[in-house]
């Protein structure tokens, strides 16, 4: 373990690696601290698939064009204005330069092929996904002399006013102080910290699943908040989607998503429907369903379909529950068969004749139910019947360090720190304070990682 470095980077995901590579290229000695062991390195970044890039003309992997203005409009739509316009525009404009930089540092892209997403115009897909990207960055970082420590958790920053002098770390039960000229905090959100989550979200989070790494415990986020840095958002905000209830508690990643809801009847544990399953296409609704399921008793939902709908959505990671009768299916899934059958029967009775078309909002709605299902409502009647259990899956938390355009961590009096920088999820709330725009997380991390690395090397 080094006892000093020009730049200490805390974290081992996309933002941290971009910062480390840039600081190293600017001539600094760089120490990167990753809490996770090598074989699960890379935080939530290793579960990602693409990033969103503005571009004026088609590139090797993006079609057509995507202007910064259009990108900004998309951002405003999802965040409902919870964004800092100057920083947001800075990120979106810089996104135009990312593809060549990433490729020069080993990242490979592929044309988007299959799946339910239609993102080939706006999003560039990593060949092999986020873990391949992370592997490429680590290999390049090793080649260029970035010093990497795994299983090394940053505990606290030692501050002298607004100046960080040392980072205290723990590795294999031992604690060290590392002197630094600048520090980059790129250690993600706090969704992996069960205690903090329970504190902020209540006991119900015990029934939530965390889609990404258990190593994002928010220790540095909390440390800097405690030491008085300026924050954005509050602890209770997180991005959630409805995922397969059988997913592991952590790191279930993308494969645990379930796309069946629009073609299902979804019941809660009492066997009651609670929301319009057919309100819109799934990509526009999966985040809402995360919250809906979280509000149900025991934070669980039961999606039921019949034989006709099984092939209408992406295959899922766990085989569905399957039975020839509804009662049997209810039994298997732990639902009360009487309540469940009653709900399905009333749903079936409320379905109206009409054309069923999974590819558009077909307007085939139920009548007289509360709530009605407003599209794709056809009776659940053809055995075998299939069921999936839904749970809320947390993607990330929004609580952020406030930064300026140079990635410096701000203080409540609106003054920047001397040499403390932040990049990635830990400051994403400055740009995406609410909602989610697919692929923006990695863009923010790459842009601000590079800024933080550059600034830390030059001004630290």
């Amino acid at each position, binding site marked *: 373990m080094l006892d000093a470095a020009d730049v200490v980077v805390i974290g081992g995901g996309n933002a941290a690696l971009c910062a480390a590579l840039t600081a190293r290229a600017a001539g600094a000695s760089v120490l990167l601290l990753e809490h996770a062991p090598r074989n699960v390195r890379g935080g939530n970044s290793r579960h990602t*698939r693409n990033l969103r890039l503005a571009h004026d003309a088609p590139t090797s992997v993006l079609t057509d064009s995507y202007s910064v203005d259009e990108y900004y409009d998309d951002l405003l739509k999802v965040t409902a204005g919870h964004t800092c316009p100057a920083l947001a525009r800075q990120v979106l404009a810089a996104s135009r330069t990312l593809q060549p930089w990433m490729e020069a540092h080993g990242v490979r892209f592929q044309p988007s092929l299959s799946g339910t997403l239609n993102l080939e115009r706006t999003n560039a897909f990593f060949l092999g996904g986020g873990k391949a990207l992370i592997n490429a960055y680590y290999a390049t970082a090793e080649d260029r002399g970035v010093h990497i420590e795994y299983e090394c958790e940053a505990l606290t920053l030692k501050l002298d006013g607004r100046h960080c002098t040392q980072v205290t770390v723990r590795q294999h039960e031992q604690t060290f102080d590392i002197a630094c000229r600048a520090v980059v905090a790129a250690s993600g959100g706090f969704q992996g910290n069960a205690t903090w989550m329970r504190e902020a979200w209540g006991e119900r989070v015990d029934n939530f699943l965390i889609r990404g790494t258990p190593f994002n415990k928010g220790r540095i986020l909390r440390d800097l908040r405690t030491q008085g840095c300026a924050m954005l958002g509050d602890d209770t905000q997180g991005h959630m989607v409805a995922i397969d209830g059988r997913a592991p508690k952590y790191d279930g990643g*993308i494969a645990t998503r379930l796309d069946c809801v629009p073609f299902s009847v979804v019941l809660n*544990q009492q066997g009651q429907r609670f929301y319009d399953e057919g309100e819109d296409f799934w990509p526009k609704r999966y985040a809402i369903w995360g919250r809906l399921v979280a509000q149900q008793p*025991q934070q669980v939902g039961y999606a039921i379909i019949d034989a006709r709908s099984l092939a209408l959505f992406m295959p899922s*990671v*766990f085989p569905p529950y399957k039975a020839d009768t509804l009662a049997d299916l209810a039994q298997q899934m*732990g639902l009360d068969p009487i309540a469940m059958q009653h709900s399905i029967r009333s749903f079936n009775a409320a379905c109206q004749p009409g054309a069923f078309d999974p590819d558009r909002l077909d307007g085939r709605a139920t009548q007289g139910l509360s709530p009605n299902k407003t599209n794709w409502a056809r009776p659940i009647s053809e055995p075998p019947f299939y069921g999936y*259990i839904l749970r809320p899956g947390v993607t990330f938390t929004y609580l952020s360090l406030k930064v300026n355009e140079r990635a410096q961590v701000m203080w409540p009096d609106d003054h920047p720190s001397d040499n403390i920088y932040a990049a990635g999820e830990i400051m994403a709330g400055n740009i995406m304070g609410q909602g989610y725009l697919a692929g923006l997380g990695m863009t923010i991390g790459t842009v601000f990682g590079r800024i933080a690395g550059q600034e830390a090397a030059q001004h630290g």
Partner: protein
Amino acid sequence: MAETTQHMRIQHTLQQVEAENQSAPPAATPQAEAQRIMQICNACRYCEGFCSVFPAMTQYRHFNADTLDYLANLCHNCRGCYYACQYAEPHEFKVNVPQTFNELRAQSWQDYAWPGFMARAFAGNGVLLSLVCALAMAIVFIGSALLNDLPGFFSAYPDGNFHAIIPHGVMVAVAGPVFLFALFAMGMGGWAFWARGAAVSQPATLRPGGKNSGLPALLNALKDTLTLKNLSGAGHGCNDHSERFSMQRRYLHHATFYGFMLCFAATSTGTLYHYAFGWEAPHAYLSLPVIFGTVGGVLLCIGTAGLYRLKLKTETSLRSPALWGMETGFIALLFLTSLTGLLLLFLRESAAMGTLLAVHLGFVLTLFLVLPYSKMVHGVYRFLALLRFHRNTPR
């Protein structure tokens, strides 16, 4: 009160159900394991850019035994999808596509072997290779000893005329039928694999009439085979032994394959010279058969030695100990065949010629004998899998 009890009961079952469904242990047979893994990959699809396996996979929702055999033989074992996998160990999903497919592939070769009872030859293949090799050596030695007197066998022939020791006719009479049988047996295996195509579960997304017609599919399959496109990881190569990409494996396989083909060309031109023009071996160093044979032999030596070196570097998690004998035995056989061939060529005027000839022909005979029950068959099934891919998978 009753409601609470009911509620508790349901909660209890829910937990039971979830507990039972969590982290199913890796399944026992290669089939079951491949099925489990394909279901995970099909929900994930992050690796779709690496090779043909994933675009083929996404056409299915269910994977029966024949579909899995098809996908396993389509896999070129480049490991791209292992090092990129977010669900590889220590993740509880324990996804390991290359290793699982490697084992399933080997099993499928047993299932398709002709004649059927020879399926057993694939189990303990390394031992079999060595036994056949020893036997073939003995036959050639005893044979050539019977054809010659000892001084003749151990003397130098200034023109390097090995047919003085084993006449051309004897060589053809022994090797010819063995080689033709090998081709036939491999053809029967390939036929069995292809015939199961009808049983490969109907792709879910294949539109009626969506099959690509014969000739373009054939040309594409040939192109993929000759360029090893699927070892190129979409242009970046394989993960030979780490997260880093390299073209080593692809180029070494090229050396092996084209080296083999050149040796084959050497034999063919030699045969042509003999029967069509009456030009008898040994041929001059700058004649076509000898040039083909020399270049081919050198390429084959480099290719196989390199592939073996890479194999030694393979991470434990990607090894299949039960298949080690088959994999390395075959590489060793190819290497020794070409090495002894080269030695024979360069020492053909010395007194060692007789011995070298017997050793070399011993290896050649072994190669021909074991061909249909060796790793060689991967070429047959892989080509057919590529052909099926190009016929079934619309671009």
